[in-house]
């Protein structure tokens, strides 16, 4: 299936689930909800940063403090994702500024992510085509920890940064980017590397630990929590382009929903990515009963993934077709 066919197919199936008339009012853009969520998250980051500052004088307390701070920092992925869709704010410069800020702090190249993520929306859960396929079948417990520890993330994002800065993109990644846009992608990687080099030079020259204590170490140790949320989005769901069942909507508490900018309504987000995060609950209320909604919370979903959707501990077992069907997963043969 070509990209064009895949897109047409997606929209056709979207219409079977939700009408244009129902969707229209939900797609309206506003600035206020995004401002509340963004500055709310920055407030949390400021608060945990202050806790790190207090813990600096209390020996080993610095580590749990940095972990908490890192968990907050890693949730900047949520506004990065929403602004990559352009749905966070009605005002465009606000959207693009937040996109860049979050990209730099979370070490995601923002423009390339926009292309890559468009590919994910076209080919979500299609083996060999989805650029953001999280733990495709067959998956192992070790693979799960490799993903959740974020080692996978640093290899991927570091690869994007350095390869693009050197003016090279892998053929797989290239399929999502028009040829004439490559120079912009390479430039953004160079700008980001220059910023990080500046921070490294500052740290070495001044001997200050500020960058390490308030940003880099917390980011590295805190990001696994955000990775676990990503696992819940699709892992173990059907591995084919099925708008109703290839993602998971996870019912969860209001704090988690706030931190992940309502991406717990993941089926709804994939059903209609032009609906801003603040209207996903409204969309869920209208069509949620037709989508794959699970009410076991994020911890319950991790347990489900680890106990029902693994194909071995460290070596991939051959897949039993009966068990595969029972788990709802489809494998690329």
């Amino acid at each position, binding site marked *: 299936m070509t*990209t*064009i066919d895949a*897109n*047409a197919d*997606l*929209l056709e199936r979207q219409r079977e689930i939700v009408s*244009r008339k129902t*969707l*229209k009012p939900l*797609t*309206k*853009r506003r600035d206020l909800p995004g401002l509340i969520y963004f500055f709310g998250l920055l407030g949390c980051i400021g608060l945990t940063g202050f806790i790190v500052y207090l813990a600096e004088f209390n020996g080993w307390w610095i580590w749990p403090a940095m972990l908490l701070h890192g968990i907050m920092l890693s949730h900047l992925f949520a506004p990065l994702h929403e602004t990559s*869709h*352009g*749905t966070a704010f*009605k005002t*465009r410069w606000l959207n693009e500024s937040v996109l860049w800020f979050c990209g730099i702090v979370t070490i995601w190249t923002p*423009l390339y992510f*926009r*292309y890559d*993520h*468009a590919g994910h*929306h*076209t080919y979500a859960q299609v083996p060999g085509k989805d650029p953001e396929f999280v733990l495709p079948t067959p998956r192992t417990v070790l693979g799960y920890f490799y993903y959740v520890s974020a080692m996978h993330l640093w290899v991927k994002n570091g690869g994007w940064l350095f390869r693009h800065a050197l003016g090279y993109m892998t053929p797989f990644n290239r399929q*999502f*980017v*028009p040829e*004439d*846009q490559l120079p912009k992608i390479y430039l953004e990687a160079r700008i980001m590397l220059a910023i990080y080099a500046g921070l490294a030079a500052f740290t070495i020259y001044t001997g200050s630990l500020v960058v390490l204590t308030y940003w880099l170490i917390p980011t590295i140790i805190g990001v696994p929590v955000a990775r676990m949320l990503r696992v819940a989005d699709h892992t173990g769901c059907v591995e084919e382009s099925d708008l109703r069942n290839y993602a998971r909507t996870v019912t969860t508490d209001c704090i988690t929903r706030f931190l992940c900018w309502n991406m717990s309504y993941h089926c709804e987000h994939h059903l*209609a*990515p*032009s609906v801003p995060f603040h209207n996903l609950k409204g969309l869920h209320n209208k069509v949620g009963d037709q989508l794959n909604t699970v009410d076991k919370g994020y911890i319950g979903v991790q347990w489900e993934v680890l106990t029902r959707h693994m194909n071995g501990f460290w070596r991939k077992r051959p897949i039993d077709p009966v068990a595969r069907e029972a788990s709802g997963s489809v494998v690329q043969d």
Partner: protein
Amino acid sequence: MENDWVFAINVDEIDDEDVEPIEIEGKEIAIYRNNGQFYASVDKCTHGNAFLSDGVVVGDVIECPLHQGRFCIKTGKALSAPVSVPIKTFEVKVDDGKVFLKFGQTK
């Protein structure tokens, strides 16, 4: 038909800051309204063929429903990733509560 003004839609059939699909001679066209002004373009996104009439009008911009690529509704210019190829736009006029477009002639 070429270069003739062709009836497209009644003014009161589109809300402000909105878009409606129409079909003329089997061709899919999107008609936009913003601040009381009307605009028209082909209805297919140049990135992945989604219907722009399912998208969102924000000021002078139409945002594609599928990957949120953005085009200027006045000029058809591609404004942000993942779109980079412009869309064709048509000349439009309003007469007696009706919107007409110059079909066959792009701006």
